[in-house]
């Protein structure tokens, strides 16, 4: 998402998103260290494994809060289009890859790549949308 420095909603978004990313990094380190040092099993293993995913939920919620707080309807429209581009691009790639896996036996896609892939497509869509309205 593009940042307009004098847009308070975007400033809050980037601050909250940065905090969520720090939480993600901390949760990831905690989870890996937990598995390396304690080799948990059962419910604890499941809980520790999904720990890094929780900040991702926070990031997604931060996007929702931003869209609700953005008072500039044109900017909100651009961001929604960019997010839809991100969702559409990700779904398209994952669907195509799924068929390639099943039928052409290509390498299995690591599901952890789906979320970063979404942001790659959001970035591409942001550029495309901005160019359209330039």
């Amino acid at each position, binding site marked *: 998402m593009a940042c*307009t420095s004098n847009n308070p909603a975007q400033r809050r978004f980037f601050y909250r998103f940065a905090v969520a990313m720090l939480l993600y990094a901390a949760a990831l380190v905690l989870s890996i260290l937990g598995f390396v040092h304690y080799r948990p099993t059962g419910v604890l293993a499941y809980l520790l494994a999904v720990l890094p995913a929780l900040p991702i939920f926070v990031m997604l919620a931060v996007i929702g809060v931003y869209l609700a707080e953005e*008072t*500039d*309807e*044109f*900017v909100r429209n651009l961001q929604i289009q960019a997010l839809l581009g991100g969702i559409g691009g990700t779904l398209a790639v994952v669907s195509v890859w799924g068929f390639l896996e099943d039928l052409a036996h290509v390498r299995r896609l690591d599901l952890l790549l789906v979320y970063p892939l979404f942001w790659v497509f959001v970035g591409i869509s942001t550029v495309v949308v901005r160019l359209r*309205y330039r």
Partner: protein
Amino acid sequence: MKNRLRVLRAERNWSQADLAQRLEVSRQSVNAIETGKFDPSLPLAFKLARLFGATIEQIFSDESES
């Protein structure tokens, strides 16, 4: 949708940034509305009308009607 924003703005010697500041939106928003690439919501259209002391119909016109 066609509009007379550029004319109304010029009459007051306002830049796009000036109008954006008065509307509390970005300059890009004003540019997009002015060039007809983005149609404002009713609340924003009313805000524009109030700002220019005109009715919405005096600022915006439906292209399909002309």
